[in-house]
């Protein structure tokens, strides 16, 4: 599926991409929220039914009002309390944000939630769904009016380098200065490609596998030239494996050693 990103650029020359949530993910989150709302209303219905033994009209009235207040207020309250997240959005790692990366205002939350009345027309969020499919920033009408976007923070899995190396000897480690040069020259995207290639190595056709690792290895060789004794007898795939190992594993070891020395320990990653 097509994933859109929105690039936020600060005057300091920093740019970072935000992953926009797709209409399908948002619909799933919406379904979760719907279930929560129905369950809450049902619970209130049970509670109010007890009042109903004393004053039936009052209980029905309260139920009507509660139903209405919860369907409208649920999104507003949760998004305000949790800075742009409802329960469904939390589950699917979505978050409402200001379209310019500024702080989300209360009025923005109210408007985007009240405009569900139009986005929900004529049924099943047809208008809103179409709008978010067509809009470049995947906004439904409520998001357009409130100037908000919904972004996705996918869970980043730690690369499982141990699974690749499994206690194997890595000849590149004997040359720390060259490893440092390699780590400095390899871009994040290149490292990710190499890692993915290794993780999926069994899914390739044999010829394609040899070709791919040949290309990767020659690229890494051009970035940092290791002496012959370090690379002698290594196949291209083993070479790439060693490179990935020094790129990714160094971090874990450093964090472990830093744990003893203090503040450089692995940095916690808070929500935006």
């Amino acid at each position, binding site marked *: 599926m097509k994933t859109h990103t929105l690039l*936020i650029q*600060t005057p*300091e*020359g*920093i740019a*970072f991409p935000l992953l926009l949530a797709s209409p399908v993910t948002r619909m799933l989150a919406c379904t979760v929220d719907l279930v929560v709302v129905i369950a809450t209303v049902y619970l209130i219905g049970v509670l109010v039914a007890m009042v109903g033994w004393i*004053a*039936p*009209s*009052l209980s*029905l*009235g*309260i139920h*009507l*009002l509660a*139903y*209405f207040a919860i369907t*409208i207020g649920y999104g507003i309250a949760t998004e305000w309390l949790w800075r742009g997240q409802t329960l469904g959005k939390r589950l699917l790692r979505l978050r409402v944000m200001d*379209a*310019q*990366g*500024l*702080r989300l*205002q*209360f*009025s*923005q939350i*109210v408007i985007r939630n*009240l*405009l569900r*009345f*139009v986005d929900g027309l004529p049924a099943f969020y047809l208008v809103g769904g179409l709008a978010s499919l067509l809009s470049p920033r995947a906004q439904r*009408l409520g998001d*357009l*009016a*409130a*100037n908000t976007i919904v972004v996705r923070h996918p869970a*980043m899995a730690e690369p499982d380098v141990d699974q690749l190396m499994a206690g194997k000897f890595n000849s590149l480690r004997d040359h720390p200065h060259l490893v*440092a*040069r390699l*780590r*400095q020259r*390899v871009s*994040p995207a*290149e*490292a990710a490609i190499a890692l993915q290639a290794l993780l999926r190595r069994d899914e390739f056709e044999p010829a394609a596998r040899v070709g791919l690792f040949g290309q990767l290895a020659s690229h890494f060789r051009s970035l940092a030239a290791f002496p012959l004794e370090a690379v002698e007898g290594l196949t291209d795939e083993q070479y790439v494996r060693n490179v990935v190992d020094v*790129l*990714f594993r*160094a*971090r874990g070891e*450093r964090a472990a050693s*830093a744990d003893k020395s*203090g503040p*450089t320990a*692995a*940095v*916690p*990653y*808070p929500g*935006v």
Partner: protein
Amino acid sequence: MIIDLAKFVAEERPHWTELETVLKRLETDPAHVLALEDVKRLHHLYQRASADLAKIMTSASEPEIRRYLESLVARAYGEIHETRRSPHRLAPLAWFFRTFPQTFRRHLWAFWLSLAITFGGCAFGGLALHLDPGAKRVLMPFEQLQGDPAQRVAREEKARKDRLAGAKTTFSSFLMVNNIKVSITAMALGMTWGIGTIILLFYNGVILGAVAVDYVDAGQAKFLMGWLLPHGAVEIPAILLAGQAGLMLGRALIGWGTRASLRRRLREIGPDLVTLIGGVAVLLVWAGFVEAFLSQYHEPVLPYSIKIAFGVTELVLLTLFLTRSGLQRVGGGS
């Protein structure tokens, strides 16, 4: 540039932690005002974190630190570049008695337009029914209004039993919910460049005009006033205000008379829309109570003169409230 990441992180980490602490305080307590020194410090920390991010951006081996810094810089960016004032304290009374009427007056043009459209609908509905009484079924799609007004009046006035006995709370809740829904829809339909709002207002006007002419033609003007005024004096203006909000939204979308960008136009009216629709909801809660507990009682239980006087008083008070309340503050401000 080769950086020793361990050393780099060790040196910069205290600054990131400090920035995080400041941000957390600002985010949890919006009323907090920073001193000039603190603001300078915040800006310094923000720039420092930005520079660190730029340094680490190209490093393949530190995705977590990069993401952490990105998130930190994004939060600081939001705090530093945010120029809108956020309401930091809940002040419902000040909001209702000052902000709400002030907002109403600021966008008076939209209210007049909303009123004119509704009047247009009234005139059309009234005229249509007057000229073609057979069109009643089309103009007023409500079961209880299909019969002859005179017969209904006779029936209601004869009724000795309270037909709403024991159901008044339910009825008033139903009215509140229904009317607030219609109001929110009227505002939200502004997203159709105001066309939806205009149609909804006009249609409401048609029904109102048709009902009025139906009763007046049948010689039941007094009953009509006694029946509609107590709640209508608040309910109808409330719907007009919701229409006002919808028209404001429509105008912001179209962009009449301003050179600001669409995003900016929508950003500017956002808080006003929320204030208006909130005020409308409060008015409709009142109207719901009145309609269920007062409007459905007629002579001889409740003299029409009292009901009409009650409605007129409400209308006068509402007009005074919307035109006068919170006025000094505006005068002082300008």
